[in-house]
């Protein structure tokens, strides 16, 4: 179970620190899909902060699609940044940057690049072609 540590001097608000620590734990694999986040009571019992702060953080994580609250049971991780996904995302981002530069050199303006991408994306197959 993840344990939160709050740094009062960091200039980052407590709820943001919680969000960041959850994300960081996801990236490092300390939290995996299906794990339960500590209950609000458990968090405030260890780190004396207002329960609404924790709720706010969990809501933001839920909004970002990383966790989901199951009423009466708890809050669970439903999505993850594990290392491989993150690495793959980095590579993909690099490829995309290269493509954009090529498109610019070919003389396309920003709107045309965006239109080309969206059009191709929408008409691409929805699943991996095997």
């Amino acid at each position: 179970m993840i344990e939160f540590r709050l740094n009062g001097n960091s200039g980052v608000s407590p709820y943001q620190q919680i969000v960041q620590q959850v994300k960081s734990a996801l990236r490092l694999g300390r939290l995996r899909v299906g794990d339960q986040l500590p209950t609000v009571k458990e968090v405030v019992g260890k780190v004396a902060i207002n329960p609404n702060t924790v709720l706010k953080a969990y809501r933001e994580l839920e909004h970002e699609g990383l966790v989901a609250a199951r009423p009466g049971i708890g809050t669970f991780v439903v999505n993850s940044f594990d290392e491989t996904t993150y690495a793959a995302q980095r590579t993909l981002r690099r490829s995309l940057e290269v493509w954009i530069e090529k498109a610019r050199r070919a003389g396309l303006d920003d709107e045309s690049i965006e239109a080309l991408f969206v059009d191709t994306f929408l008409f691409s197959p929805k699943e991996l072609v095997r």
Partner: protein
Amino acid sequence: MTSALSATDLGKRYGRKWALSNCSLDIPEGRVVGLVGPNGAGKTTLLHLAVGLLSPSVGSITVLEQTPASSAEQLGQIGFVAQDTPVYAGLSIAAHLQMGAALNSTWDAQLANRRIHDLGLDPSQRAGRLSGGQRAQLALTLAIAKRPSLLLLDEPVASLDPLARREFLAILMEVVVDHHVSVILSSHLVADLERVCDYLVVLAASRVQVNGDIDELLSTHHRLVGTPRDLDNLPDTVHLIESSSTDRQTTVTVRSVDPIMDPAWSVESLTMEDLVLAYMSQAEEQRRDLVRSKGGEP
């Protein structure tokens, strides 16, 4: 939404000195309220008025929409932990719990016993032998076990060491989660309150200087830094709280609902401590001006 505490022009006078004056508040329930201010600002007076230990000199106060100490039922809805957590030194912890059971019709004996057990306290021990932190926990147990809707705590952690302080606040937050109580706690240290409170009341010079949801306060207060300039030119919607100048820059703390658009200022956000200090120094400045205008020395 019922109000946890509502005061209208509340004032309390001792002889010729006003311990609290012109206090108007409307604190909604369901909050953890921080009542902050320097010593002698009137925090204890306000809390004692809320519990019914004092009666107002002028104005009125209602707590949970009833007059304080008006009946046994009303007293049963309020849990109070006074400054320095008074307990009966000669009575054991168990005797204190018996007192709670005998004097409060809403007493939850199971809750009380479980808390004492979880805290690792020996019920047969005399309250006079407990450490400061343990006494605070006993006082909190006595306040909580009557299942109040509102908890009032007067500087509950002021005399505790940092570890006991953290433990007390943590347990208090657990209580908020479990029992959905509204909490009003006072302190002269902002650091104690910053993490646990979501509503703020700043008392200084025996008056309420500012009050409101902390998120809202922090979003409407800013620090502006710019070149030295005349501060009378600030727009009407921007209220000056505090200012300081060197020959190279002027720094002001302001309250403004609208965003600051003037490019001449660089806008920074404030921490709660900055906010409280700004209002407290404004109060101090006003107090000095008042004394000077009467011809005295501040």
